[in-house]
């Protein structure tokens, strides 16, 4: 009998702790013929506004050491087209659909959330207050505690679904934002979005991305992400979903041991569509080797130097 990988967040049951991160998995259906979507605990959609968006000019991506710098700018079909055309197709799969909601104003976040709330087959709402590649909303909201509170409160009032703000790492102290989001009614937190970066083409002396700066993702950011998710998890009572450079079972376990209840896989989706099957096998192997029957037994078990050994949540 293999170990249980199921995890539970307030209002959101996942059959395993692996979700596809927003912006790295399209709307899910793009991968339908390439991998079995039912392998995933959940899918977080590309960010959605009320209306379709063009996004940033090109070039939009640049490969950097162990990383990917991007400024896509939330190109998307808009929430109504998603609900009408895409959501029904996702119903065929045994996986939780989490919709990433965006807005240029607090009211737009709430309006997108109300449309999602009315739609069948949505498990939760992730709030994008951390995209570094838009001029309004995004990181501009997620970098200001009052705006963070305003957006999370407005989304909270607009839905009965689980509400999960996705926090920006581009702040001095993520625990401030974690607590503000919790106080505003968040059910869980996604930590972290991309790190603001700049890559320069030395021949032309121009940025390598047309937008100028971009968001850095991939293995390069993993230690920063684990540290910030760990800080956030210690600062709040609600669960944290860890994100940042996860491409293996060990990577996922780093976040979970540091206190995350679930994790999201991002850039690795581009690198290898077979990543979920591999991570699941590696998680099972780890639990077997450690004589554990439940993945929850590792959550928050990090023994940090100078601190008493942590006790697992379920052990």
């Amino acid at each position, binding site marked *: 009998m293999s170990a249980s990988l199921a995890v539970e967040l307030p209002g959101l049951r996942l059959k395993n702790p692996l979700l596809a991160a927003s*912006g*790295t*998995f*399209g709307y899910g259906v*793009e*991968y339908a*013929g*390439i*991998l079995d979507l039912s392998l995933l605990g959940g899918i977080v959609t*590309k960010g959605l506004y009320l209306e379709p968006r*063009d*996004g940033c000019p*090109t*070039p*939009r*991506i*640049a*490969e950097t*050491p*162990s*990383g*990917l710098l*991007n400024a*896509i700018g939330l*190109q998307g079909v808009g929430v109504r087209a998603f609900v009408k055309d895409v959501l029904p197709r996702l119903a065929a799969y045994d996986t939780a659909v989490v919709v990433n909601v965006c807005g240029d104003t607090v009211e737009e976040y709430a309006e997108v959330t109300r449309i999602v709330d009315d739609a069948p087959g949505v498990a939760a709402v992730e709030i994008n207050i951390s995209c570094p590649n838009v001029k309004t909303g995004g990181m501009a909201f997620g970098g200001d505690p009052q705006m963070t509170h305003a957006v999370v409160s407005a989304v909270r009032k607009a839905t009965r679904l689980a509400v999960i703000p996705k926090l920006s790492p581009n702040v001095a102290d993520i625990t401030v934002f974690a607590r503000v989001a919790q106080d505003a009614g968040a059910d869980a937190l996604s930590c972290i979005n991309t790190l603001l970066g700049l890559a320069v083409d030395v021949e032309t002396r121009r940025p390598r991305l047309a937008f100028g700066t971009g968001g850095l993702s*991939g*293995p390069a950011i993993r230690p920063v992400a684990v540290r910030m998710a760990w800080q956030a998890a210690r600062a709040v009572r609600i669960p944290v979903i860890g994100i940042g450079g996860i*491409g293996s079972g060990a990577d996922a376990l780093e976040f979970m041991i540091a206190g995350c209840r679930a994790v999201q896989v991002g*850039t*690795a*989706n*581009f*690198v*290898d*569509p*077979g990543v979920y099957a591999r991570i699941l096998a590696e998680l099972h192997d780890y639990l077997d080797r450690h004589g554990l029957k439940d993945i929850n037994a590792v959550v928050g078990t990090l023994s940090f130097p100078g601190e008493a050994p942590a006790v697992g949540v379920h052990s």
Partner: protein
Amino acid sequence: MPANRDAPLVSRVPLEGPYTLLTFRHPEVATEGRAGQYVMIKAGTSADLPLRRPFSVMAVDPRAETFTLFLKAVGAGSRALADLRSGETAQCLGPLGRPFSAPPEGSEALLVAGGYGIAPFALFCDELQRQGRAARVFYGGRTAADLQVRAAFAERGVPLVPATEDGSLGHRGRVTQPLEAYLDGGATRPRLYACGPDAMLHAVARLAARRGLPAEVSLDPWMGCGVGTCLGCVVKVQAPDEPRPRYRCACTEGPVFDAETVVWPGEESSLARRRGLEKATA
């Protein structure tokens, strides 16, 4: 359907300079791959350069379940592929993207290649021969060493017109010059297909528009995923009935596009749109 596999390298043929022919075993690409389609491929699992790279399928052998890539090593990612040894595997997803469309009966296919843009045309010539269509290749580069794999077309009995900027092989100058000369000589319902650097593709698109010829171009932007999720490879495209250009994924809606629908750098709208508006106001 595209399949994601560890594809073992079956053979490796080093060519002049940075060029190599690599043949991998991958049943889906070998049996379903069409000219103009590509694979996303990476040697090894190193995190240092995370992304796979797109390469056109140059040839397929369905019975051996293999396909061949024509690779120019330009950076660390392509060099790692070129350095693979027989039996080692590459992570490979394919076949991907929109292929070239078949020319109608009685129509002559003129294939315009720049440098390693020659890759998809070997497979295309196989398809054209099966369909009984005439083909002719115009192959341009800076110098003779850039015009590799010409033998592949000689073997297929397809005429090839070389052009080099330094005059070291064939016509001295741009590849569009012998193409224009051939068109002036009276080609039979010609249809243009182009793959190569953006400047060459743009020149072919302008030439085709000027002469009222149908043309398809294969674009080669940076790609992150190959399946339409990263939105990193988008290009501006505009159909005649679209009031403004829209970003389309080169990876899934291309890499082959109708030349007149592409909005080229420095232009506000597509040729197709401008012509449509001219007709509407005429």
